[in-house]
């Protein structure tokens, strides 16, 4: 602590340690946030249900979704990534999860919305098992904080059944 440069070094070091401490404290408080969100999804119609040229089933549909994600946001949240997954079971796989639609919410004010939108990504099976299949829709979210560990969660929503036969010939 003799010269100004040594004192400047000490200030910088202690400031960095305290910065890490307050970021860790902010992240730690996130654990006490118990989110209670509401979401509802409904399949409006199946736009296309066919078998692709390489042999896999493919489904495109229109979804009507409404969700309220505001309780996921804290002061330490940078953005929330939310996606809707279709889950179903086949003979070869006990669980298939296919993402149909996703969205990034960056502000708490825009976390509550309703959309009626065709699926961003088609539901493509590993095989031809989708005829007449009962599919469950599950909403997943990843909360990305400003400082700390990413928090994941999910919520099962409604189920629906695919038609027994293809709607268009491939």
């Amino acid at each position: 602590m003799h010269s100004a440069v040594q004192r400047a070094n000490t200030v910088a070091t202690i400031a960095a340690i305290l910065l890490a401490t307050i970021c860790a404290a902010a992240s730690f408080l996130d654990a006490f946030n118990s989110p209670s969100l509401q979401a509802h999804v409904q399949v409006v119609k199946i736009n296309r249900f066919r078998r692709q040229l390489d042999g896999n089933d493919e489904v495109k549909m229109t979804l009507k979704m409404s969700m309220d994600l505001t309780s996921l946001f804290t002061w330490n949240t940078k953005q929330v990534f939310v996606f809707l997954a279709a889950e179903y079971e086949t003979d070869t796989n006990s669980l298939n999860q296919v993402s149909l639609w996703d969205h990034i919410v960056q502000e708490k004010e825009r976390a509550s919305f309703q959309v009626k939108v065709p699926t961003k990504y088609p539901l493509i099976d590993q095989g031809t098992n989708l005829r007449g299949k009962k599919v469950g829709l599950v909403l997943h979210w990843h909360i990305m904080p400003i400082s700390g560990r990413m928090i994941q969660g999910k919520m099962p929503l409604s189920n629906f059944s695919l038609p027994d036969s293809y709607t268009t010939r491939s």
Partner: protein
Amino acid sequence: MAGRSEFSASARGVSNCSTQSYLCRGDSHVFPSSPVLKARINEMDWQGQKHAEMLMQIFLVFSAVAAFGAGYLMHDFRLMMLIYAGGVVLTALVTVPNWPYFNRHPLKWLDPSEAEKHPKPQVSNITSSSSSKKKASKNK
């Protein structure tokens, strides 16, 4: 303080400041007036260094706590960062430069004229030649 010349100077009883010489010659009437100039020229004394270190720790911890509290209450992470950065800059401004406030108990070095009246005592005849050789190198 290991590499400073003051140590060897104090053994001889003479101040040998590494800074501007007119301050060490005893010309105390020739003194810079503004605190900024004083900060650039003077060093801190021991009490001042201890005081500066204590102030630094208190300021920094207080900045961190205040920043976290404000950010938590206002639900604003960016506010926390801004308050903390301001606190760190304030701490650096207060404790890093050699403000004259930290130099209120300066060490009194022996006057050169006094030192010549009381020469350093010789240790023994055997080592006297080596010590006088050392003195010669220090005297330069």
